[in-house]
């Protein structure tokens, strides 16, 4: 067995010693990357990018296709996922420069729907609603990643690298400039910031990370189809960031744990039909989003005053 003393996730596993707990940790890792990347573009940058999950989807499909059709290795797949998602984000960024915030929300949503439609209908490429099965686990150093445990170690490494990079980003001068631009576009410019360029970078970087998360997702489930990347998923990511406080690294980390692991698992203990659990979780997520938005309504989305 591959031994590696890695803090939190391994401790968790030691305590519970079940495959299911490992599964939760994998999901947690993936969603941490996805949520923090949205936190960067939306929480720090103030950019209401409802197409974020679309870039996550592109990352997943890129890895899926490259590994199944072309037998590309794991690092190249993840890199390609990051790059393609980032490239897609450049288009979204270009759109954002032309639209005011509320129009951009609609526009990014529409863009996301176009991507969805393409995933469903471009059957020759994506196999449509049938999805892409048989995505092999990564191959590296002769280790068998088919088991949850080893794969978890892989996810932990990738997650820590991504989160580490994002932690630095959140405290960097880049983030300060982004935040400044989010609060006052014109004041940031009068301090020498090229706001357009900053925002394009924000879109690129956040989507690249989302793409990596997508790649991990594809590797983990060994199968992807368009239904995993719907509006519901976007609302979940939005909820996590709003609940965790937009812009707060640790807040969003905690919210990810709450909404992806604790809440759904807590629900399992209720005496309910399995078919009700999914919608109930969706309901509670939305309810939580509403409550947090309501409580913070004076603070969220401050309207920028004109010059």
């Amino acid at each position, binding site marked *: 067995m591959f031994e590696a003393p890695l803090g939190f996730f391994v401790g968790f596993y030691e305590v519970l010693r079940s495959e299911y707990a490992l599964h939760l940790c994998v999901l947690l890792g993936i969603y941490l990357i996805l949520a923090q990347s949205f936190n960067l573009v939306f929480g720090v940058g103030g950019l209401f990018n409802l197409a974020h999950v679309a870039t996550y989807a592109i990352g997943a499909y890129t890895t899926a296709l490259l590994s199944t059709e072309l037998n590309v290795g794991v690092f190249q797949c993840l890199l390609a996922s990051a790059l393609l998602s980032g490239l897609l984000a450049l288009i979204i960024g270009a759109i954002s420069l*032309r639209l005011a915030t*509320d*129009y951009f929300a609609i526009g990014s949503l529409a863009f996301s729907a176009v991507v969805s439609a393409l995933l469903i209908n471009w059957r020759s490429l994506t196999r449509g609603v049938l999805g892409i099965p048989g995505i092999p686990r990564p191959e590296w150093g002769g280790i068998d990643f088919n088991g949850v445990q080893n794969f978890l170690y892989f996810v932990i490494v990738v997650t820590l690298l991504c989160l580490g990079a994002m932690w630095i980003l959140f405290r960097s001068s880049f983030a300060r400039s982004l935040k400044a631009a989010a609060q006052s576009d014109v004041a940031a410019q009068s301090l020498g910031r090229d706001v357009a360029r900053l925002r394009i970078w924000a879109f690129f970087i956040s989507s690249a990370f989302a793409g990596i998360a997508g790649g991990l997702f594809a590797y983990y489930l060994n199968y992807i189809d368009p239904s995993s990347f719907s509006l519901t998923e976007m609302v979940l990511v939005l909820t996590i960031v709003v609940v965790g406080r937009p812009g707060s690294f640790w807040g969003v980390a905690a919210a990810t744990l709450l909404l992806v692991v604790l809440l759904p698992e807590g629900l399992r203990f209720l005496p309910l039909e399995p*078919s009700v659990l999914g919608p109930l979780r969706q*309901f509670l997520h*939305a*309810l939580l989003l*509403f409550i947090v938005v309501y409580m913070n*309504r004076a603070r969220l989305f*401050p309207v920028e005053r004109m010059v």
Partner: protein
Amino acid sequence: MDILPQLLINALISGSIYAIASAGLSLSYGLQRILNFAQGHFMMVGAYAFYAARILHQGSLPESGVVALLVMLLLGLASLYIFVLPFSSFSPLLPFVTTLALGAMLEASVSMLFGVNVQSISRGLEFESIEFGGVFITPIQIVIIVSALSLLSLLGLLVHCTSFGRRIRALSEHRYAAASLGTSYTGTTIIVFCLGTVLSGYAGILVGLETNIQPTMGASYTIKAFAAMTLGGLGNLWGTVLGSYLLGLIENLSIGLDFGGYSLPAGYKDAFAFVIILGVLLIKPEGLFRRVGRRV
């Protein structure tokens, strides 16, 4: 080219649905810049209320209709008071997020109550299509077109020929001035919003009768309603109506016609709404149809 008449009829049918569903949305937006993200989900709720009354409880057609109407009214009031009005003095983006949450909650609730599977609500109302002039149309589709024309006419009468309609138009054009003149701004908003809710519920029932219902049917109709509004100019009622029919036209022609031997697979139909929104927002955000004397 001989499928063109059929495509046009289909466009008329789709356009009618979109027009009924988005008319209310357009008025609400004009009044209070309310971007109701759950508009499509309202359609779904209307359809399910009708389903519950008619199929599950064996109600008659009129009874079920009334039940659905009442449910939609309640839904409209609740949505307005909980998800929209508390946020009116803060950022206009907030109702956007809260109605997103509302839509998700509606979808989840309906899934829990009725299950996620597709249901049929047209039991006992299945009729054969009628053919005339090479075009096939079912009775329910005729009802859709006729409903749209009559409802929109009534709406037109309301907005242009009644004092209430004058109030709507005045408040939409001079939001701040009119409110300070003491006209009951909230009252008007409530009535208009609930009207829109009831209309979209009705549209949902029509869709359900024409095809079937499913808790997830709401989301794409929300986007279609937004597409129609964007095409016609946000807040411009008749622009939105025209936009709805134009949307129906674009959707159906795009998949039906041959472009030099290549035609788009039917699945892309929905994508067109989205591409349109993007295109219009980027090129002409004020919409294609100039506001007839309207200012946002």
